């Protein structure tokens, strides 16, 4: 397929933005249906307790209350919250949508109050008396794996949900041949995704039609439909999931929670629309968290810096229950342990354990930031041990472009890459040698300057169906309407990624039309053909690929009709700039004219199927592997431990860029989140399992004024996995920036003999290190 480059590659302004900036878009809470009832959920105040009794009498008679439901009401009627990740021997605890006699984390739903408004519902929820019998609590993942730990799910007799081993190569001989073995224990703190719009559900059941519509702020409308239909025991085609505007997801809406099925079930009881909008406090307690791994990494290396092997023994903190992909996240870490290096032998031994906390699951990067942080942190530790420049150590172990597709000891084939190109570009932008000289000079004056590099590769465009629990293909329909306007129906569910714009750019160029004539529709299971959704940096690389294929089909069909209209044969025609040209009689016909002729088929070839529309389900043959180099320069205040980021340079390679402005936006947001992980973000539970960071007043989401200017550039190494040559960029910034920032700050502390500090690098922690 050849592309006109009128739109593709241009910094086209996002067509989504005007309505969002003006506040006139529609999120779930903006959907107002007459007679809507409001649901407030009573949640556990205890991290681990038996529920002895629940008294809802006062709540039921409270003004405006229509119904109050507890676990007893839904037991046997609403299925368990699903976990789609299948690992061998996985212990999957039953996870009822309302607690059934027991709670295992603070925030677990216990009862639902339905009332005429949310205030009355909340008043009534306050009247419910729950008699708890508190049980011993375990919040520490490593302690939870021990035999003396309180057991959360008695039926398993252990808190271990699974053990998982990954990697290939002769790990024992790698370590036996090593000149040096570098070992470090690293903690990946728990993070909260914090989408600006919390979750929300509106459910409306029509008993006559036996159909239900569920509005949900989700990243996966179709998968949601299937799962909720199963949970409710209803026919999937009678459930319509609509995803209106979604104010951010970062993975936390790549899930099926208690509330969707619960609201659906309630709607079927009360026969009125029911709405629940998550509060920020609930969002902290009961929307999935991310990261939360603690483990020890060992690297076997030759004195010349050649990497021989990597071993990672890790405990993954799963939280109390398994959400949709909870156990799959650490397995992604295992896949990416080779980083952008040749490491012949890799082994990960992972233990996934239950703790009395909210479940962990996919948060921007989902398992890969853990791998990259680990590998990139270890590279600095190795460099320090070998007294090598950390850049040279990295360079020495990178595969050359000619070695792609590059096989890793974790079983992957990296599609394409030119790691040194991005590295060199970033080094040049930073003027690395000069920076090092300046650093040495500053150290003499007692200033603590640090330089941190991370060279990353990540796994995107999820992915070949065989590798994903629910399949990894994506769908698109291109519908040229009779008037020549083009409607795109995409199975992905963008929620900030800008595909309404990017897809219109692609169609604009492929069909040679004004991109403003393209309308991209997504997130309605009754309008759009089945799709997988938006996560794993797949929207463009898989969903966009499906779109290209569907558009090709449309052009092919149009060409048949064009040839008929121009009374020539197809072979003589070419499609240029929206027109079929090349007919011997010099006549041409536009795609719009062909469309009209296709819908009013008065003059068509025999057997011509009316209409001009095509659908394609694209199955990727591999993942894609974006990569890049980030460099961070920081200064630590000797007196206070405060960190100041002096410079931040990022050179990313996501293959071909459809819209460089959107790419930059994704990188900006990603760096912000990754840097915040390095510097200050952390979900904190106390030893009783109470959430101490339950508000934005205590949980530090990064704000613009806390971040430096980002100096960005890119390299372009296209992929052959999809027709766009695009790799995906949704998560790259997050993945590259945490280790670059951490390496920089830890490098700043080198004069104190510091080799590693766990994140977040809060000033007090650094101050203590400098004063010990």
């Amino acid at each position, binding site marked *: 397929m050849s592309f006109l480059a009128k739109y593709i590659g241009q910094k086209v302004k996002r067509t989504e933005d005007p309505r969002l900036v003006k506040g006139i878009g529609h999120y779930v809470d903006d959907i107002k249906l007459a007679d809507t009832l409001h649901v407030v959920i009573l949640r556990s105040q205890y991290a681990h307790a038996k529920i002895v009794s629940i008294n809802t009498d006062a709540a039921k008679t409270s003004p405006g209350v229509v119904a109050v439901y507890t676990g007893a009401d839904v037991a046997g009627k609403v299925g368990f919250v699903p976990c789609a990740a299948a690992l061998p021997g996985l212990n999957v605890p039953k996870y009822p949508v309302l607690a059934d006699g027991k709670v295992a984390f603070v925030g677990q739903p216990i009862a639902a109050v339905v009332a005429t408004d949310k205030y009355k519902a909340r008043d009534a929820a306050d009247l419910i008396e729950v008699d708890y019998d508190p049980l011993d609590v375990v919040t520490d993942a490593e302690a939870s794996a021990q035999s003396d730990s309180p057991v959360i799910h008695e039926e398993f007799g252990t808190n271990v949900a699974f053990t998982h081993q990954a990697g290939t190569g002769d790990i024992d001989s790698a370590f036996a041949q090593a000149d040096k073995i570098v070992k470090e224990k690293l903690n990946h703190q728990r993070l909260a995704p914090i989408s600006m719009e919390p979750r929300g559900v509106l459910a409306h059941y029509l008993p006559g039609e036996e159909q239900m519509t569920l509005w949900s702020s989700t990243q996966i409308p179709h998968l949601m439909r299937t799962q909720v239909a199963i949970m409710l025991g209803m026919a999937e085609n009678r459930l319509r999931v609509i995803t209106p505007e979604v104010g951010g997801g970062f993975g936390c809406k790549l899930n099926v929670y208690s509330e969707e099925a619960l609201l659906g079930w309630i709607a079927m009881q009360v026969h009125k629309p029911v709405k629940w909008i998550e509060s920020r406090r609930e969002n902290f307690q009961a929307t999935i968290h991310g990261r939360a791994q603690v483990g020890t990494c060992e690297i076997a290396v030759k004195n010349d810096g050649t990497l021989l092997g990597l071993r990672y023994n890790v405990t993954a903190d799963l939280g109390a229950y398994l959400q949709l992909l909870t156990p799959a996240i650490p397995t992604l870490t295992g896949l990416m342990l080779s980083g952008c290096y040749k490491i012949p032998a890799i082994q990960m031994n992972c233990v996934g354990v239950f703790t009395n906390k909210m479940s962990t699951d996919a948060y921007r990067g989902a398992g890969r930031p853990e791998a990259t942080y680990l590998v990139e942190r270890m590279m600095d530790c190795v460099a320090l041990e070998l007294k090598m420049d950390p850049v040279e150590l990295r360079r020495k172990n990178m595969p050359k472009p000619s070695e792609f597709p590059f096989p890793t000891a974790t079983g992957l084939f990296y599609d394409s890459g030119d790691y040194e190109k991005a590295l060199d570009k970033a080094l040049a932008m930073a003027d690395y040698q000069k920076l090092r000289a300046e650093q040495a000079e500053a150290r003499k004056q007692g200033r603590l300057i640090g330089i941190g590099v991370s060279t990353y590769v990540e796994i995107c465009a999820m992915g070949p169906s065989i590798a994903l629990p629910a399949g990894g293909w994506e769908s698109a329909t291109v519908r040229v309407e009779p008037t020549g306007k083009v409607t795109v129906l995409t199975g992905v569910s963008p929620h900030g990624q800008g595909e309404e714009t990017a897809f219109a750019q692609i169609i604009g160029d492929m069909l040679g039309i004004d991109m403003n004539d393209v309308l991209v529709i997504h997130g309605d299971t009754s309008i759009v053909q089945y799709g997988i959704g938006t996560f794993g940096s797949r929207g463009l690389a898989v969903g966009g690929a499906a779109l290209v294929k569907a558009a090709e089909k449309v052009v092919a069909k149009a060409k048949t009709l064009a040839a008929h209209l121009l009374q020539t044969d197809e072979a003589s025609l070419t499609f240029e700039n929206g027109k079929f040209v090349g007919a011997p009689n010099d006549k041409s016909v536009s795609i719009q004219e062909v469309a009209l002729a296709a819908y009013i088929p008065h003059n068509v070839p025999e057997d011509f199927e009316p209409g001009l529309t095509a659908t394609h389900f694209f199955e990727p043959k591999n993942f894609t592997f974006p990569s890049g180099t980030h460099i961070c320069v920081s200064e630590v205040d000797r007196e206070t431990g405060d960190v100041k980021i002096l410079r931040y340079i990022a050179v990313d390679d996501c293959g071909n860029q459809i819209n460089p402005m959107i790419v930059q936006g994704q990188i900006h947001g990603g760096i912000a989140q990754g840097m915040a992980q390095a510097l200050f973000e952390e979900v904190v539970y106390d030893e009783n399992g109470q959430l101490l960071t339950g508000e934005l007043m205590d949980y530090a989401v990064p*704000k613009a004024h806390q971040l430096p200017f980002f100096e960005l550039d890119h390299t372009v190494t296209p992929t052959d996995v999809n027709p766009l040559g695009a790799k995906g960029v949704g998560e790259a910034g997050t993945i590259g920036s945490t280790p670059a920032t951490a390496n920089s700050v830890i490098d700043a502390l080198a004069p104190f003999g510091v080799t590693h500090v766990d994140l977040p690098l809060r000033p007090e922690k650094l101050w203590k290190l400098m004063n010990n």
Partner: protein
Amino acid sequence: MIPANFEYFAPKTIEEALQLLEQHGEDAKILSGGHSLIPVLKLRLASPGVVIDIGRIAELKAIKVDGSTISIGANATHAEIAANADLKTHCPLLAETAAQIGDQQVRNRGTIGGSLTHADPAADWPAAILALDAEIVARSSQGTRTIKAADFFLDLMTSAVESDEIVTEIRIAKPEQPAAAVYLKVPQSASGFAVIGVAAQLKVTNGKCEAASIGVTGLAPKAFRASSVEAALVGKTLDEAAINAASAKADAEADDAMEDIHASGDYRRHLARVFAKRAVLAAAAKA
């Protein structure tokens, strides 16, 4: 936000507001910027039956500088104070403190009267108000009284304002050497509140410190004047050694240091000393 039910009034005059307060007594709460009250209502830590919004009382917004006094209406927002040209000239400490509160949205809504009355131990205003020896004017239907800053902060989240009173203005005597002042803080990474905040107002003649007043917030359950530092500075030539020695006493008046997930007590004490030093150095440099 889903607060408990309350009745809402928006009086246009102070008299009307006072009357409502008298009528509803303990069941009423004053609302100004709402940036502290609304979170409390949201979490249902308080469920007042009546909320009296004083935001429409125009006279509570005035900022006046005449003769030797500065008067700031209780409802002046942090942003208005930060931007006020007269204050920048005659008492830059006020404008500088205001500019460092939270973020722009917080500054656009939060008011000086609300902040002082709320008496959050990590709020910024108390440090400056103490350092400037301000007076807080409170009115009730019984009359008007003036409370000295030193007597205003009673304990954690407790100010001297009675439940039937409305703070109407904050009065400050123009500092003799307005420029010799600075407010420095360490913002808490999530909220922006002060992990530590030090306000210093000096009077320096020929390098010698004639007067020093230092307010410290964030360290103790209530903001305080670092009198030991002040005493150690007065009469001294403000060289680094003198400032170092004096600021080492910045936490002397704090019997208890606050501790939370953002900072330990020891670290807060250390920061108080470091920021007292930096504040005095910076203020002295401007003198």
